[in-house]
């Protein structure tokens, strides 16, 4: 019999669930809540204890009615501060759990009416950040261990109860609807029930794992934490989803239970899924859609409805479409100001308006050298400068031993404005290597990009379409971009790219659907670029009709004739009634580009 891969959360609070490892058909492991969600999303585990935010964001899972919840104070999700809430300017968070962060956002808005900056930091440095105006949201065992050590300690579950009179569910056991047979579902539920009953002796046996007195440790597991999600817990979860959807923090996803209906043996659902029409209306209204909803749109929605929805949303954000240009130069050209000036004056001749300078081919071996180069260029150029990529930074970090945070800080301080999307066009680990030959994980790419955003640089992001991906995987990738953009809003533009130009299946409908749904899904990245206009004017024209708001033209990738052709095509699009901002023309010829 094939084993079911199960992942529990690595924590004292969840120790009753360790009983799952006793099941012969279970391959058991433990990890963080966020990592559990990633593994479940990407098919690395079959059943996992995940944050309820991730349950809603995915939207295609069923719950096993067991999890981690608290009726009032739970001690495991606490805001630690030296001063009262009102004096806080920053709250530091770790990457451990998203439910607590979402609950914090909701409470800040609805209960306290405050808006301090929320900043993610490494888990082990969280408490180092706490100062007169900085608090830390601490979860799990760390929170249990330090309770009582700070002047202000706010238990988020307690605050939620004060707001709603309902319990708060932090995590839920989730799986895909077709993973567990009726028999397996029953066996797992039997172990859950056994674990709940035996939690007190389990707590005593494991008391050395936590720095609490035995009585308190035992009480935490026996009395404070709710493991079986009863009617009240489900009502609390429903209320949280409702409020989060209203605040546009989460998609509108009702909790669905995996309990089997005794008569048919089929998985029961509490609420029927939303219609395509409702999903489209919600997304145009700016509401967040889930991965399951996006997948439903990709698989079932008429192309015409997606086209209208994406164009409506585009026109709601941008009155008119626009054109932007990039000029790629070599490191040598960048080092020689005279050559650079000449290059840029040529660009002026080709009527470049919104221009980015890309410096290509540089190997990051000597950070000081490139800091100096960027510093000099920054003093001379008015245009944004793009240089290096996340894979370059990771390579240098690996070889120099310097943290990516420090590299990002120094390059941005020296004058780096933009990071390209290179290496991050499909951030699912199993696809990453196949598509871009990457030797890093998606999480490394994202955390590196996060530092650049944090220090003020902007970046591009994209989705590279290939035929060996599922729609769900494409939206999992977009979800990672959306999550990072929520934390550090540094993605300046998004584009769709084709992993190969040769596959006829990638010629028409799939990329168009991907573009349209990306416009709807990426509710926090407004600029969607078309990058096809020069080499494939028809695709470019359709992209600009179906969600893209800007045509991005790399002047170095094309001859002056091709660039002129592209501008002519844009004029042709204007001729047939497509709105464009004024394409930069002769008036910009004398624009002072150098100080």
């Amino acid at each position, binding site marked *: 019999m094939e084993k079911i891969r199960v992942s529990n959360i690595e924590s004292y609070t969840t120790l009753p669930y360790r009983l799952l490892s006793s099941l012969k058909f279970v391959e058991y492991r433990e990890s963080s809540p966020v990592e559990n969600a990633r593994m479940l999303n990407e098919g690395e585990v079959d059943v996992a204890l995940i944050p309820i935010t991730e349950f809603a964001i995915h939207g295609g899972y069923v719950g096993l009615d067991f999890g981690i919840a608290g009726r009032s104070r739970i001690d495991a999700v606490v805001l630690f501060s030296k001063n009262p809430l009102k004096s806080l300017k920053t709250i530091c968070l770790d990457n451990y759990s998203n439910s607590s962060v979402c609950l914090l956002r909701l409470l800040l808005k609805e209960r306290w009416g405050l808006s301090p900056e929320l900043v993610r930091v490494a888990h082990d440095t969280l408490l180092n950040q706490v100062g007169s105006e900085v608090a830390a949201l601490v979860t799990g065992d760390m929170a249990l261990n330090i309770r009582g050590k700070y002047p202000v300690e706010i238990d988020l579950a307690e605050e939620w109860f004060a707001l709603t009179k309902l319990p708060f569910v932090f995590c839920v056991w989730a799986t895909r609807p077709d993973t567990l047979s009726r028999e397996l579902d029953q066996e797992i539920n039997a172990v859950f029930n056994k674990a709940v009953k035996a939690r007190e002796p389990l707590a005593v046996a494991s008391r050395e794992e936590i720095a609490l007195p035995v009585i308190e440790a035992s009480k935490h597991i026996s009395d404070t934490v709710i493991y079986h999600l009863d009617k009240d817990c489900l009502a609390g979860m429903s209320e949280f989803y409702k409020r989060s959807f209203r605040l546009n923090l989460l998609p509108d996803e009702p909790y669905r239970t995996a309990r089997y209906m005794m008569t048919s043996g089929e998985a029961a659902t509490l609420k029927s899924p939303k219609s395509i029409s409702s999903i489209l209306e919600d997304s145009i209204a700016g509401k967040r859609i889930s991965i399951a909803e996006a997948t439903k749109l990709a698989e079932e929605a008429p*192309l015409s*409805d997606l086209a*209208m929805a*994406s164009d409506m949303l585009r026109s709601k954000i941008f009155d008119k479409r626009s054109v932007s240009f990039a000029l790629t130069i070599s490191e040598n050209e960048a080092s020689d100001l005279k050559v650079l000036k000449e290059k840029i004056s040529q660009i002026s001749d080709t009527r470049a308006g919104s221009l980015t300078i890309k410096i290509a081919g540089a190997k990051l071996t000597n950070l000081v050298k490139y800091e100096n180069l960027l510093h000099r260029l920054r003093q001379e150029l008015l245009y944004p400068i793009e240089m290096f990529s996340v894979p370059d930074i990771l390579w240098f970090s690996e070889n120099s031993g310097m943290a990516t945070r420090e590299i990002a800080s120094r390059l941005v301080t020296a004058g780096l404005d933009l990071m390209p999307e290179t290496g991050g066009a499909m951030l699912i680990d199993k696809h990453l290597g196949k598509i871009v030959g990457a030797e890093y994980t998606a999480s490394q790419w994202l955390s590196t990009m996060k530092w650049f955003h944090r220090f003020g640089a902007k970046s591009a992001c994209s989705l590279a379409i290939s035929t060996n991906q599922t729609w769900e995987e494409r939206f999992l990738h977009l979800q990672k971009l959306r999550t990072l953009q929520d934390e550090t809003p540094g993605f300046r533009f998004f584009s769709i790219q084709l992993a190969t130009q040769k596959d*006829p299946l990638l010629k028409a409908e799939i990329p168009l659907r991907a573009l349209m749904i990306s416009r709807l899904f990426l509710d926090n990245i407004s600029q969607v670029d078309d990058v096809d206009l020069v080499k*494939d004017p*028809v695709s470019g024209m359709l992209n600009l009709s179906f969600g893209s708001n800007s045509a991005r033209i790399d002047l170095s990738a094309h001859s002056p004739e091709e660039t002129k052709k592209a501008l002519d095509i844009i004029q042709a699009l204007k001729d*047939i009634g497509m709105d464009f901002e004024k394409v930069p023309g002769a008036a910009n010829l004398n624009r002072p580009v150098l100080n």
Partner: protein
Amino acid sequence: MALARFGIINGERLPSEGIVGFSPRPSTLDTFSLKALRQFGFLGIAQKIIKRQELSVGDIEHLIVHAGFPVLLKLLSFSSRKQGKISIAPAVVLPVGHWLKFGFSSKEVIDQASIFLKSIQQNQIQVAFDEIDLNNLDGNFAEIVINISKSRRGLILEGPSIDKIVDTVRDAHFDKRERLENILKTLRDCGFKRLRASSKTEFLHLTKKLGFQNSLITPVDKFSSDHMLAQELHHLCEITSFEDLVDSWTPGVLGETNDWRRAAASDFQLLRVMAIGSLVLQSVPTIRASALYLSQATMHYASYFGANDLGFRAVDQSPQLNLKFPLNTDLKKVSES
């Protein structure tokens, strides 16, 4: 879907394997569509299309001037036109007139043309001829065409345009109508099945009566205003609503252009007019996108915008090369030597 393995454009074989036909999913006027079409200003037209009501000149002009690609896609999804398999057929122009001029015998022409046509694997091939001397149809030409038409199954012979035939009889001293009918009957007896039609009802009736399929091309740039184009489409709708007068309709342009902007504008505009024609001309069974007028990249998307037939045409000397006949210039050298 049976795809032609190639078409011939400007002397080059054009692979068509890459073209994936698109059939819109049936769509309904749900709450989202209602809101969206109202916002875009096309709800009234959508309701008419759903109720199978005729669109007025004003409606058509509104579509021509204001409908973007998303709205056109949506309106097409309401259309009653049955979107079966997309037909992608190769078409060749046989330069029979040239070969005869340069001294090839009828038998040589028939043999070579037959070998070539048999080598094409598709079930259907559209065949046109470079020159048809309408005043001498009874000679060698008729024999050649009859034999070529019998060389294999699935050949659709396309004759000259009705306008050209009418021009031929314009100077006739006796009954022009009878002369016109005689030419058409001869063409029919030779095996021609399809004629390039004009939108004049009188000729559409005549050619239909004689058993021809009428293939109508509307050159979009012939009309000096959107209103005139709307009137033409409305007229075509009226004459095709009650009788099967037109078998296929193709939006086209009058002349070729080397100007990028014009070519691109023409491609984009033809796609739009094709969609609008497909909505307006509900009684015309075939909406054809022709590679004569559209770029290869645009042909990819033609089926999204109402085309249910994609035609690739040979328009130059390439058939001679494919038939392994020498080019005209070489023939001259041969005859001079």
